[in-house]
């Protein structure tokens, strides 16, 4: 019965294959704001913080808002990453959020261009919020895309250099390095080998070494990801080749990719107490301002120093700058309570007292200009380094794009191959990567 067999086979194949599917596509909803925010109402706020101290700080901040606006109750949902956020924004529904936040500033292009976040212009105009006087240029830049303002900054992150002062003293190093060449020399001096591994590594340069990602390195070179036509600039702008070359040099001179990768597998989780910097496994760490509080909380047994990251050797005058990012806040397009949502958002992002107290609680850099200069900021004196980085005119961030962090991931993937020695021709590799970025962007805008 070959015919019957074939039919059975086809039927079975179709049935089993269909079972592999799971796609869900949903539409969009009304974007109007006709709710009365002076009436009793409740809204939902989604955020990504998870550490107990951070969750406590959020709770206190929301408590202050509710005290000031007794008619608005806020339901807070934590631990939300961009995957969950994006899916909820697309799915909509009554259980969805009204106010949302994300740590991924580079996703702003996707959030604004697709309509995932509501356009805030009417709300800002109605309440006459002067954004230029409230926020710095970089923060205003990473919360809008091509003129469409769909988010506001809620606290900010500045990236700098953490170093083990005790190890510095032992090695006779007087001050933190200011250029990348000095940095490499210091990293080598601090490195102590043990067998075919390390007792202490001066610095973990590999791209999987937590915050040592392409965009954070790049911030210390004068660079432009895209040209005036919106095309990838990475093969034309020599600073990209300089950064990749220097990072590879660090990898090679600190022991080579394989040896470093093996050592990296002995590290604890980035967000756990067993972070390699806390344990003295590495003497220097590229990290955000939050690391200071996290490291001190684990009582690491050495004095922690903080400084700006080094800059390119021929750009020494720019020392003091750094990479800036932060939390962005927006309003869900499906929200039926946009006016109430805007009240919460305006309070959390622009009220100086709210921003200062939240920054104190969560140990992040404040986002408004007034809060940055506030005498009420109760942060560790070393935190001033990060405040200065946040104010530095040359501090920068990665620009938004219609594919969100897609172009950053492509650059990162190239970095993994280059540092491992799998790409020999850097120029050709960058040209190919640039073409890939342009193709991906064109695909989204087609």
């Amino acid at each position, binding site marked *: 019965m070959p015919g019957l067999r074939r039919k059975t086979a086809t039927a079975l194949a179709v049935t089993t294959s269909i079972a592999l599917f799971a796609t869900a596509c949903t539409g969009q909803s009304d974007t109007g704001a006709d709710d009365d925010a002076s009436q009793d109402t409740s809204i939902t706020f989604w955020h990504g913080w998870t550490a107990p101290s951070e969750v406590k700080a959020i709770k206190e901040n929301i408590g202050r808002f509710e005290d000031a606006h007794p008619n608005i109750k806020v339901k807070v949902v934590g631990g*939300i990453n961009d995957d969950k956020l994006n*899916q909820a924004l*697309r799915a909509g529904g009554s259980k969805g959020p009204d106010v949302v936040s994300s740590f991924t500033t580079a996703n702003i292009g996707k959030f604004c261009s697709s309509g995932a976040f509501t356009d805030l212009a009417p709300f800002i105009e109605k309440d006459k919020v002067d954004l230029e006087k409230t926020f710095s240029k970089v923060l205003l830049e990473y919360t809008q895309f091509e003129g469409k303002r769909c988010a506001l900054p809620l606290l900010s992150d500045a990236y700098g250099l953490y170093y083990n002062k005790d190890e510095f003293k032992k090695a006779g190093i007087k001050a933190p390095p200011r250029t990348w060449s000095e940095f490499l020399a210091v990293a080598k001096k601090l490195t102590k080998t043990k067998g075919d*591994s390390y007792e202490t590594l001066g610095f973990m340069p590999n791209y999987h070494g937590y915050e040592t990602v392409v965009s954070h390195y790049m911030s210390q070179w004068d660079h432009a990801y895209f040209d005036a036509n919106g095309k990838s600039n990475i093969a034309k702008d020599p600073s990209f080749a300089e950064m990749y070359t220097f990072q590879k040099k660090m990898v090679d001179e600190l022991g080579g990719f394989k040896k470093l990768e093996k050592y990296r597998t002995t590290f604890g989780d980035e967000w756990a107490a067993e972070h390699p910097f806390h344990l003295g496994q590495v003497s220097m760490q590229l990290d955000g301002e939050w690391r200071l509080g996290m490291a001190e909380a684990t009582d690491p047994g050495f004095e922690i120093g903080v400084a700006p990251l080094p800059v390119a050797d021929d750009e020494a005058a720019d020392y003091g700058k750094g990479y800036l990012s932060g939390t962005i806040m927006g309003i869900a397009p499906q929200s039926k309570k946009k006016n109430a949502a805007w009240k919460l958002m305006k309070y959390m992002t622009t009220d100086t007292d709210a921003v200062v107290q939240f920054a104190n609680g969560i140990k992040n850099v404040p986002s408004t200009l007034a809060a940055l200069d506030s005498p009420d900021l109760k942060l560790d004196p070393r935190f001033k380094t990060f405040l200065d980085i946040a104010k530095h005119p040359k501090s920068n961030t990665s620009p938004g794009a219609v594919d969100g962090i897609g172009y950053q991931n492509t650059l990162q993937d190239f970095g*993994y191959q280059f540092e491992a020695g799998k790409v020999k021709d850097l120029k050709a590799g960058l040209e190919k990567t640039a073409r890939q970025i342009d193709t991906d962007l064109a695909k989204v805008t087609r």
Partner: protein
Amino acid sequence: MATQYTLRAKRRKSALRTLAFLSPWLIGFAVFFAYPLVSTVYFSFMQYDGFTPPTWNGFDNWSYLFNDFPKFWPAMQNTLWLVLVMVTCRVTFGLAIGMLITKIKSGTGVFRTLFYLPYLAPPVAATLAFVFLLNPGTGPVNSVLESVGISAPSWFNDADWSKPALTVLAVWGIGDLMVIFMAALLDVPKEQYEAAELDGASRFQRFRFVTLPNISPIILFAVVTGVIAAMQYYTQPIVAAKVASGRMGGSGQPFEPGYPEASTLTLPQLVYNVGFQRFDYGTACAGALVLFVLAMAFTALLMRRRGGLIGTGD
């Protein structure tokens, strides 16, 4: 005329009754299988991000997937690798362990339990344990290997070893196959072995000409279900990649699957990544259809070839 009318009415009634009894399945099939399939085909020709209205873009998604998306072919190769190697290893080891245990005279219960227990471990917990055991820097497996002078691989941290590491993990959890094979092996008539022995058949000949034909339907079942499971492989590689890369979470950034160097990226992961992380539903639908065609081809091939596997008389 009246008789004809009654007969037709009876037939219609019978057909309606059949349909009524079938309706729960038919509704389920239409809603959960047929509609998603038709939608997937439809959206594979659209540019759609979930917010802006979908627009027709012809074969752009297909062309992008096959020609411009650098992770598609690695994901395809990884999936095929897992289908071929992982399924082969699981079936071979499952059969071998099953045979071994049926031959053991005493303590069978203990061995059955020992080999079955790993199957009960939740996939995430089992993967976490394996990443810990096979950690190149701190794992006990590499410490033992290196202490006896063997240059140990980096397992989940090395693109060349990540899939073999996943295969080791899959083979460790063959308890389900072992039990099925044991039941099949114990069902083989003893007289056939006795007859073969009288005819002077060697141990291998007894396995080839008595055991194998008797258990071939079970082998086919193991292979077909194994292929389907390998094509749906998602949890273990993504957990292994997250843990081994040191990015378990916290920063809020979505995790790009495939670490290291896209070596653990499977087609289902790619479909999820493109659809629900990049929000390019059109390309994700095209990817899902590739998975569909692949699964259909494998299943059809296996079912067509079952004559050879089961035996012509079956």
